[in-house]
């Protein structure tokens, strides 16, 4: 490492000796050398995070379009794995994802024109290089999809050879994979596109007036065009997939509801969306119009909701039941654990942020569960909440004169259990999370509250005392101060903790992997566990990849929804 840095040092020292124009080029050279050194510093991180953090996204997408059991190079299967998981909803989702891409692209274009109008210039000239760049990017993405089967095959071909033979054979096989139809040509087209893009960009910049020389638009153009290409590809994929599925079903003589389902579900979503839009515009109208629009929105909402409620269960019943249940379980887990973690975290933090003895000790104790390895801590909870009458919590219940519960062995929903003790039957759909899952939720609250305490404490420390002094002079009580000063000023932290809490709970694996029991009948299996089982136990590689992608989409839409909700509610200073 140090060897590489020394030449750049000596060179940078040498620059002052150059004179005239050379100083300028020397300074530029210095900049370039710094950039080079920075990339050198970053290279291990780029390789590792790129290969094991970012590339998996593309790799997953590729793998999810492949069939085959325990087979690295399965045959192409289009959306087949997704259909297995969520049935015809897969087509609807792909189509809507495409539409979403288009909407984002249109918004980008709008922004481009808004800036252009403000600066009174034309953004069109940068469209050509941007289009070429986006095309190059899309081709590179396509290259991964075409090159991957050959590359993965190399691994299989090399099995059984010695190390020397492998060193010799590897380049041969790689060259063979490279010569497969559509691989190298895609690469060269992509290179050509990038080259032309660079060239046109350079020419345009050079021929523009100096005030116009701004890369302000290019990035947005590239994104917009790339998204349009992506949307086009998705729509094409959806429709060819639907057509093949339709043809297959016709051959088998089944009556097929794909089109009807697509239309009804899409219509349901459109109606919900429209309802939301109408509701939003209603806010800006006069009172008569407002009432009418709100009424209209409510009708749209009801119709859309009814369409979805009548159609979605049919689709869900056709999909993978375990997967749907796991998604529901995950949502129960998030809803059960996250608000409580935030609430207790906030309460303890506000208490701790007073004149208190042994502040550090309390803080240390609260943080203890977070730092404890999850597997060990879950083992502890497994024993404490054991379904045996001799389990620690059951002994506690017994000493209070209560019946022992089956805790981690209890698959029935809590609402059902409560209903049983009150002697009425709760219907299946209202059963709620199983008692076993509730133990997992309690564990989550126990483990992550302290983490929130620490962050809330930091946030409280950032609030200026003056606000409270001013408020108490105006006669605000402690609750009013908390409600109108502390809560709003903590909202960025609450927002941060909520977003990361959602992501974290969706990720949760270790705890539930340890806590789950056979007797709980899979009522504790969150999405991560179903994916793990599909991969590790059933070796359904493509299917597990598809489930991973769906989970990512669920997380992204959950955080996006939260983002919408938080807009205007989060108060930054």
């Amino acid at each position: 490492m140090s060897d590489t840095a020394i030449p750049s040092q000596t060179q940078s020292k040498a620059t002052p000796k150059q004179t005239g124009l050379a100083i300028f080029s020397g300074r530029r050279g210095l900049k370039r050398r710094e950039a080079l050194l920075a990339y050198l510093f970053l290279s291990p991180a780029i390789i590792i995070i790129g290969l094991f953090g970012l590339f998996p996204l593309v790799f997953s997408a590729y793998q999810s379009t492949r069939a085959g059991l325990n087979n690295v190079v399965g045959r192409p299967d289009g959306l087949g794995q997704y259909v297995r998981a969520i049935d015809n909803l897969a087509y609807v989702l792909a189509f809507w994802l495409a539409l979403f891409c288009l909407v984002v692209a249109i918004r980008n274009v709008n922004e481009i024109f808004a800036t252009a109008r403000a600066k009174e210039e034309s953004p069109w000239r940068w469209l050509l290089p941007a289009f070429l760049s986006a095309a190059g990017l899309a081709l590179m993405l396509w290259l991964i999809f075409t090159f991957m089967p050959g590359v993965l095959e190399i691994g299989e071909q090399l099995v059984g050879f010695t190390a020397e033979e492998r060193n010799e054979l590897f380049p041969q096989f790689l060259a063979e994979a490279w010569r497969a139809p559509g691989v190298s040509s895609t690469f060269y087209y992509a290179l050509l596109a990038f080259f032309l893009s660079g060239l046109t960009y350079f020419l345009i910049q050079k021929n523009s007036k100096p005030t116009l020389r701004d890369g302000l638009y290019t990035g947005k153009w590239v994104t917009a065009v790339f998204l349009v290409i992506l949307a086009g590809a998705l729509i094409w994929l959806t429709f060819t997939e639907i057509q093949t599925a339709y043809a297959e079903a016709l051959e088998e003589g089944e009556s097929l509801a794909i089109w009807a389902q697509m239309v009804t579900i899409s219509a349901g979503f459109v109606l919900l969306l429209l309802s939301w839009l109408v509701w939003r515009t209603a806010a800006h109208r006069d009172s008569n119009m407002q009432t009418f629009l709100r009424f209209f929105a409510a009708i749209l909402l009801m119709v859309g909701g009814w369409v979805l409620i009548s159609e979605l269960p049919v689709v869900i019943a056709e999909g993978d039941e375990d997967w749907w249940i796991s998604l529901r379980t995950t949502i129960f887990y998030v809803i059960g654990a996250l608000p409580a973690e935030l609430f207790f975290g906030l309460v303890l933090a506000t208490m701790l942020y007073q004149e208190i003895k042994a502040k550090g000790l309390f803080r240390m104790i609260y943080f203890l569960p977070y730092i404890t390895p999850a597997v060990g801590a879950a083992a502890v909870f497994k024993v404490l909440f054991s379904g045996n009458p001799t389990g620690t919590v059951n002994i506690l219940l017994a000493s209070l004169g209560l019946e022992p519960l089956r805790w981690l062995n209890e698959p029935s929903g809590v609402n059902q259990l409560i209903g049983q003790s009150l002697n009425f039957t709760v219907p299946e759909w209202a059963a709620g999370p199983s008692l076993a899952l509730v133990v997992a939720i309690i564990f989550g609250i126990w483990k992550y509250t302290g983490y929130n305490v620490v962050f809330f404490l930091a946030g409280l420390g950032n609030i200026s005392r003056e606000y409270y002094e001013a408020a108490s002079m105006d006669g605000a009580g402690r609750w009013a101060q908390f409600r109108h000063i502390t809560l709003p000023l903590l909202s960025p932290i609450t927002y941060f903790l909520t977003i990361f809490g959602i992501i974290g709970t969706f990720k949760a694996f270790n705890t539930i992997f340890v806590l789950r029991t056979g007797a709980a009948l899979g009522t504790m299996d969150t999405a991560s566990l179903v994916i793990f089982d599909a991969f590790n136990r059933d070796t359904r590689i493509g299917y597990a990849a598809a489930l991973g992608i769906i989970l990512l989409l669920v997380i992204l839409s959950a955080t996006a929804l939260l983002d919408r909700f938080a807009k205007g509610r989060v108060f930054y200073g």
Partner: protein
Amino acid sequence: MANQAVPVTREPAKPVRSSFDWGKFFTYFILILGAVVAIVPFLATISISLMNLTEATSQTFIPSTPQWGNYIQAWQEADFSEFFFNSLQIALITVAGEVVFGVLAAYAFARMEFPGKNLLFGLFLATLTLPQAITWVPNFLTVSWLGKVTPLQWIDNWPALTIPFMASAFGIFLLRQFFQQIPDELWDSAQIDGAGHLRYLIQIVLPLSKAPVLILALFGFLGSWDSLAWPILVTRSLDWRPISFGLQSFLQEAGSFVHLQMAGAIITILPILVIYFFTQRQFIEAMTRSGLKG
């Protein structure tokens, strides 16, 4: 819940307020309740781990005579020495990589100018939102492919267990925050003395950032010690299986030997707790200072 407890007991006693501060009492009550909830599972575990079999499977809270032999028995029966050593090895290799690569990358982000800086940083941070579950399949395939193609054995060996985690976006972010706080004057004077980036990093920045580097190492150690899904996927023999796996399978094997299981849990937790007790001040400080400035 405790909200009701206070007024119910002494509502009419308001005049005494000057001598006894009920607000303070309430605060301490809540704080101590929280602390008790946080700590009771640990105490229960220690208590159960010291019981004999009959006590562990009956309704007892505290062992009559502490059975310290449980720890030895659990250690031997679950083969913890093997798992313990494996985990230690995996964690140390991972942490070494994480610290070296993290320091280099964070320095580049904090102190150097290069094209694509923001894009790259954004991409790194984006990996924090990816669920683990989406990386299992592709990373497993990548790792097994690398094992077949390169002379290094990846699956069921240290590379598969450590290399994918040797650079963490979280660590780079944490260190960058600290590096950015180092005043520019230091860099200016270092430059006057003729120091380049690498020398400045090693001689000035690193000695100033012992605490964050320590924190990164601790978090890396904890993450590695706690990993379970990935090691199950990429190991086939016991040679490289970590302690979390050992504990998990011991939980299933030693079904009713609750006291031994708890001893095993304590053995797994203890190294982390010991480290935490010695470093908790820096630990918590770094946690709070790491994010959330913006």
